[in-house]
């Protein structure tokens, strides 16, 4: 397999961690320097100290080397110390010849002690080093898990994991996700093609280490880590990378599950609305059609036998039901346009009084059996609205008021300013509205949900009203009318600048 990853897509790889890489040449050089320094110190002290005590200075060098540079360097330091000690301080000076058998013995003892010390000390050093590494690994894991635990964006998870591996291993790393369409390499944030899937991914295992991301649900992808000069991932490093991989696999699986749940919820909500729409459409289309077809066929078949009054009633039914159909189709069109954002406001300056008068006129036949009282404060600022749409809002509201209140009752319209907006209240004396429903009446198909097929509403009217008011930066709300009887609908419009300049002339 070939796998093309551009290592230059993004920042250069970070430098290797200082804890993990150290050349042996440096360690041996350290040992030499330590022994040489001890030689200098011992030469300085040779007149004040007995010969055997000078060996302690060298023992210190061995100990120091063991702590700093490990076992091999300290063994070297031990032998070097013996040679230097012998050459400089054991008589005869400046030769490796040893004249006294006692000195031979003490040199042998020194060597044994030095090697043992090296051994013990370096073992302690290794243990403490391992402990440090474990701690660093735990901290890195903790840090990574903290960053990806709440993350639901797959790419963000992938970037966090790849970044963490890079920091700890020192090689360019990418996370490759196994997706429905195939493999996708998640690029670095800010890389030229960030987010774009790399198609037809294949990879070259000579150039990249791969570490699989296995979760309970299967293989979700892998980590690709660039090989640095043929080095292998080993020991502590491999364990760390594998721990990162496990963490990443869990996080990726969780993010995918959350996404799937979200999708499923959306889908079921859409299905619910669709079935509501279907039932609403079939009911609201069929009912008036049934009346129209019924009345028309009655007229065709029995025209001669019906009285003038009956014929008039049948014809009126056809007209009224036709108008109802027309309103329903208009509502459906409005919903579609509002939902698809295809509605462009044609704003113009209008007086609230004009709006109310025009809407009352348009709703005229349906308001004929009610007492409509209009009270608009004089001198209100002009509204800057789409007249046609806002008129429709008010006609809808007036329709509802008429439909849900008794004939002969009063419908009051009151226009005022209210907290920096222009407010219009429409109050009826009808059946009213439960406090728990004051928000739900603005839901789509609320009437259908309510299983209340009384009246001729479509369950869309108030939803449309709210959508239109919101488009205008205004608001619509419902409440129980003050006094407890009937419903009160409040429309609020923002006050816009520029509608009061009349070029100097006052009417």
């Amino acid at each position: 397999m070939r796998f093309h990853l551009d290592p230059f897509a993004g920042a250069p790889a970070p430098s290797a961690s200082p804890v993990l890489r150290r050349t042996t040449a440096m360690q041996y050089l350290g040992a030499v320097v330590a022994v040489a320094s001890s030689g200098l110190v011992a030469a300085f002290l040779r007149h004040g100290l007995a010969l055997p005590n000078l060996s302690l200075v060298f023992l210190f060098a061995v100990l120091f080397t063991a702590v700093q540079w490990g076992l091999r360097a300290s063994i070297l330091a031990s032998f070097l110390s013996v040679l230097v000690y012998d050459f400089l301080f054991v008589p005869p000076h400046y030769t490796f010849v040893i004249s006294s058998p006692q000195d031979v013995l003490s040199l042998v003892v020194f060597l044994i002690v030095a090697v043992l010390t090296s051994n013990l000390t370096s073992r302690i050093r290794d243990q403490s080093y391992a402990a440090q590494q474990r701690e660093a690994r735990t901290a890195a894991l903790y840090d990574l898990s903290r960053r990806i635990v709440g993350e639901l964006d797959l790419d963000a998870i992938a970037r966090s994991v790849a970044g963490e591996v890079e920091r700890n291993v020192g090689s360019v790393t990418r996370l490759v996700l196994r997706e429905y369409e195939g493999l996708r390499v998640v690029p670095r944030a800010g890389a030229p093609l960030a987010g774009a899937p790399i198609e037809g991914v294949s990879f070259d295992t000579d150039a990249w280490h791969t570490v699989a991301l296995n979760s309970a649900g299967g293989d979700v992808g892998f980590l690709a880590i660039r090989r640095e000069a043929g080095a292998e991932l080993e020991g502590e490093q491999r364990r760390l990378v594998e721990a990162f991989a496990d963490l990443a696999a869990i996080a990726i699986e969780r993010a995918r599950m959350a996404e799937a749940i979200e999708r499923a919820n959306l889908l079921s909500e859409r299905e619910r609305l669709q079935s509501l729409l279907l039932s609403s459409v079939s009911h609201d289309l069929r009912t008036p059609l049934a009346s129209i077809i019924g009345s028309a066929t009655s007229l065709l078949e029995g025209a001669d036998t019906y009285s003038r009054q009956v014929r008039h009633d049948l014809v009126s039914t056809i007209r009224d039901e036709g108008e109802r159909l027309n309103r329903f189709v208009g509502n459906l069109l409005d919903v579609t346009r509002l939902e698809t954002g295809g509605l462009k406001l044609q704003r113009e300056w209008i007086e609230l009084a004009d709006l109310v008068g025009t809407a009352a006129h348009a709703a005229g036949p349906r308001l004929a059996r009610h007492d409509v009282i209009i009270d608009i404060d004089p001198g209100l600022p002009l509204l800057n609205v789409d007249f046609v749409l806002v008129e429709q809002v008010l006609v809808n509201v007036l329709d509802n008021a008429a439909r849900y209140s008794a004939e002969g009752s009063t419908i009051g319209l009151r226009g005022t300013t209210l907290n920096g907006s222009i407010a219009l209240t429409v109050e009826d004396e009808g059946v009213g509205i439960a406090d728990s429903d004051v928000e739900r009446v603005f839901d789509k198909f609320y009437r259908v949900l309510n299983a209340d097929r009384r009246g001729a509403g479509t369950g869309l009217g108030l939803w449309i009203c709210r959508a239109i008011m919101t488009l205008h930066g205004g608001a619509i709300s419902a409440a129980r009318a003050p006094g407890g009887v009937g419903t009160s609908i409040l429309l609020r419009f923002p006050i816009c600048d520029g509608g009061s300049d009349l070029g100097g002339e006052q009417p």
Partner: protein
Amino acid sequence: MSDHNIKVLVVDDEPQIRRFLRVTLTSHGYSVVEAEGGAEALRLIAGSRPELVVLDLGLPDMDGVEVLRRIREWSNVPVIILSVRDAEREKVEALDLGADDYVTKPFNTGELLARMRAALRHQLRSQSDDPVFRNGSLLVDLARRLVTVNGIDVRLTPTEYDVLRVLVTHAGRVLTHQYLLREVWGAAYVGQTHYLRVFVGTLRQKIEPDPSRPRIVITEPGVGYRLQTAD
């Protein structure tokens, strides 16, 4: 005014609409010629010389507005537009191009007949016509610059009177905001619809029996105003 034998061209691609218009208009004493599309309509206007055209804007072969534009290149025949709801911009465009009025589908016949009468009246009117407008309690005598409600003089500002005068000379027909603004304030004020709103508002206060529910100066949302005639 007699409607007898006035020849009307109905342009609509829907046979049901043409049939219902033919039946209705014929029974009201008009004679009806029909066209299915724009090209046929243009041919018939040249050939049979109708005295009024009812033109649907949604034609299959040609944009209705384009048909109107071509008619107006050489003919002043009154044109009533059939349009749909939410097409106010289209209505205004057609009115600016010289359409006399519009009705919105679905419409009731009474409305259409009233529009047709107003358009024909305007077409036939000459200088000798009675310059007096009456609707209910309102009387406007343009020759004497006199406005009365229930016989009592109404004092209008010069601008209010100008607005009313333009409306009266086109009684029964819709007038676009632009048209009214140009006629009353001048071409530089086209677009200042809020002027119109305010002066129409105060005019209503003085001439409408119930200013909160206007019956004489009717607002046509998104389009303009119409002075309601008594018929």
